[in-house]
């Protein structure tokens, strides 16, 4: 028996040595490029669509500079994944994402500021540049913008409505004639949708945050709960289920676009992402700005900006800075990313270039010319849910004053 044990032991030791050799071999391979060839590696994370679009340009950048560029597609929860991975030291060097992440990324020390030259700055649309500016510091390079607009079925509604009242009148007439079943497709759902409701809220005199001395948003000046916001929610209520019936909780993110393309409503409030579906449905359509209330302020939508970030905990920050500040700012890349997904480029030169080939793009840009940057301050996280629920409640007919007061209380408790 002792002999057998010895045999087993010897065999195991062989295996151990073999495994150790394997392990070593693998490690050598991994360590190889770092030690021998003098090239750095740049790791970029983006969502699925943009990863594919970035690939050729990243390869080109790699060849020009003699470095390896790796692109990894992160399909879901990009921000959280990025934060967690950064913290563990397994994050990317460059991250691609929405500009309203900035506040949270900065408070977690996950992104570095970028220093753009005056010339580079002047090539970027002012709204987009403002969006990526946080605490007077530029935290990323914008490449595409998006904003809400009003898409209308021109067979049903030939003229763009000048005001919401016009829109509701046209919609009601079409409904009475049995041509449509809904006056307006503006998504709300049972729990509301603050992003889509904001243009109307702004037109009726509401605001979310005041403006701070440095031009950014001031979290201490909360607009929800103020006089203007109550008046705005009154107007939303009047458009709601107990009023005109233009805003309905049954119109949700899942069915808003489908209801429009199914010709059940003549007007859709949505963004550039809806154009593909609308085109596919073969509708005759036109895009204009979201109309405001009669005698009210302008219905300013939010401006969202897709941004390249330099990760603070990246392993190759110098190269990441070079890529983001000196390469992403070239129009060719912006045009290629536009081809991957049609959103207006943030670089003025690129926008001019693609405007000619896509008439919709100019209309989206026109609809968003007064758009205000979606607040990137971390406090904005406290707004979304309570605001949306308050919107859903007043659309369902709840009293505006108490609803707004409850939302304001919840929001300010979370901001602290």
């Amino acid at each position, binding site marked *: *028996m002792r002999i057998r*044990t010895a045999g*087993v*032991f010897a065999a*195991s030791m062989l*295996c*151990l040595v073999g*495994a*150790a050799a*394997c*392990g070593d071999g*693998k*490690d050598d391979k991994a360590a190889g490029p770092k030690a021998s060839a*003098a*090239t*750095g*590696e*740049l790791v970029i994370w983006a969502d699925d669509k943009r990863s594919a679009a970035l690939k050729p340009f990243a390869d080109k950048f790699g060849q020009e*500079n003699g*470095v390896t560029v790796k692109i990894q597609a992160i399909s879901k929860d990009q921000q959280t994944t990025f*934060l967690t991975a950064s913290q563990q030291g397994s994050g990317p060097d460059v991250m691609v994402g929405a500009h309203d992440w900035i*506040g949270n990324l*900065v*408070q*977690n*020390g996950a992104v570095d500021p970028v*220093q753009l*030259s*005056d010339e580079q700055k002047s090539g970027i649309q002012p709204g987009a540049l403002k969006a990526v500016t946080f*605490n007077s510091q530029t935290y990323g390079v914008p490449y595409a913008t998006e904003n809400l607009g009003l898409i209308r079925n021109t067979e049903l509604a030939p003229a763009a409505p000048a005001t919401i009242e016009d829109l509701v009148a046209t919609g009601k007439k079409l409904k009475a004639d049995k041509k449509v079943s809904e006056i307006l497709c503006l998504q709300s759902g*049972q729990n509301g949708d603050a992003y889509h409701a904001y243009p109307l809220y702004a037109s009726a005199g509401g605001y979310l945050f005041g403006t701070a001395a440095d031009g950014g948003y001031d979290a201490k000046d909360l607009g929800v709960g103020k006089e203007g916001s109550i008046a705005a929610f009154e107007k939303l209520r009047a458009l709601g289920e107990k009023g005109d019936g233009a805003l*309905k909780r*049954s*119109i*949700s993110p*899942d*069915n808003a676009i489908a*209801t429009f393309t199914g010709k059940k409503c003549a007007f859709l409030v949505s963004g550039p992402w809806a154009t593909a579906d609308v085109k596919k449905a073969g509708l005759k359509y036109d895009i204009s700005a979201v109309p405001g209330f009669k005698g009210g302020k302008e219905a300013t939508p939010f401006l969202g900006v897709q941004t390249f970030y330099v990760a*603070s905990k990246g*392993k*190759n*920050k*110098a190269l990441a*800075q070079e890529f983001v500040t*000196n390469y992403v700012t070239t129009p060719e890349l912006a045009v290629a990313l536009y081809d991957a997904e049609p959103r207006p480029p943030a670089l003025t030169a690129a926008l001019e270039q693609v405007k000619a080939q896509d008439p919709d793009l100019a209309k989206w840009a026109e609809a968003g010319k007064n758009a205000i940057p979606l607040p990137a301050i*971390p406090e904005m*996280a406290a707004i979304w*849910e*309570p605001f949306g*629920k*308050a919107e*859903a*409640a007043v659309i*369902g007919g709840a*009293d505006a004053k108490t609803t707004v007061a*409850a939302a304001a209380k*919840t*929001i300010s*408790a979370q*901001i602290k």
Partner: protein
Amino acid sequence: MTTQLGGPATQRVLPVTEPPAERSVTAAGLITKVLLLGLLVAVAVWAAFPLIAGDHWVGLGVLVTTTAGLLYLYLTPRHVPAKYLVPGTIFLIIFQIFPVLYTASTAFTNFGDGHRGSKADAVTAIQTGSVTRVPGSTEYRLRIATQGDPATGALVFLITDPATGQVQIGDAGGLRPADGNPPAGYTVLTAGQASTRSAEITDFAVPTAAGAIRSAGLSRAYEGKAVRAYDAVADAIKDTVTGKVWPADESAGAFVAADGERLAQGWKVNVGFANFTRAFTDDDVASAFLGTLIWDFVFAIGSTGGTFVFGMFCAIALQSTRMRFRGLYRILMVLPYAMPSFAMLLVWRDMFNTDFGLINNVLGIHVDWLGTPITAQFAVLLVQLWLGYPYMFLVTTGALQAIPGELTDATKVDGAGPFQSFRRVKLPLLLIALTPLLISSFAFNFNNFNAIFLTTEGGPFPADNPNSGATDLLITYTYRLAFGGSGAQYGFAAAVSIFIFMIVAVVSAVSFRRTRAQEEVYS
């Protein structure tokens, strides 16, 4: 006639007096053993490298001890019971005990957005974030060069003023004019070479009168100044322009100024029981807690009970031999179980839509199903019933087949009707077999996040309270509190999940005790 139960008495005596039989080792067994142990060692070696690289010596010690222990255990002929127990124990530690301990330790910290890293990380982030370009300063072109080997030699910045074309050499000592372009004796690094020394370049600063020249990538440089700096003596962040000071507050894990302004970048600290007490003292949390808890019980009991009763009813109905096409019916019954529940939950949500939903359209009614509390609660329970009864149907069918037909026949002889026979004989026997399943089903539904989040998201919400909705379970409610408003608060979420764990544990423990008592009665 003798009973065969237990076998002949002579065979039941343990063969203690016989010498232990030489256990035969087959070649296949030996190879399997060698392969498995080899795999174990391979995994250990693979895991060792990152531990060594990260200087985690305690972890390495644990790894070496565990591996050595396992090798000893399976190479020695002794300790036979341990050979069976150890693998299970190790998996128990890795997958049960470690996560619980980790959750518990997180619950005592303020880990979350704004408090993810260490204090050093926060200081670095604050200083880096405060570097601004000196107003009106030149934007330089940059090349990175060295006098020595490109991979190791000391770096310098070759800085070119684009307006004059003048080249200067910059290093830690400051700027000095260069003779020649590039200056004699200097090698300019290619982007590839420079990128391997990324960290050095990022940290490189050439001091100037107004601040320092730093790199913006590999081809541009700017003159910048860090406005905020950390003062280690005062343990505070100081703004060099305004003179404002933010002293470190170790209890909050943040730099807080005298006027209450706190810097966004904080760090992870131990907060003791603050997360636990917050669950009781915070108005937002406490106000809706009881209502949510009651509905959570209603939901879990309703889901479990409803699916069990309906599933059992179907199983008994299909047990009847008078029924034709039983196999076909059974397959149809199980269909909802075969569909992915995520997709089905979303489909059901759309079917309940007031204007476009299937249910209202088919019935010709206009009910705002998910918009009023009672109908929304009814709706989620209905969805749960549809999703869950096939499981109960399957397990009840199995358990029913294990109940001998003689028992039912005996009750008939004793004059019991079908219902009495079911109530007095079948149901108790079924319950003995199924109670553990019912308890686990209860525990699962008590925390059934998807069932609520994918249908109502906890809504409808009363107009005056956006925090707590009519169909909120404790788990969806705390998810909103911990991850909704102020970004992710993992510490608080961990504390509340410990509370939920305790509630479920108590309910399960009580139920299991009762089951045991029941088993004693019927066995």
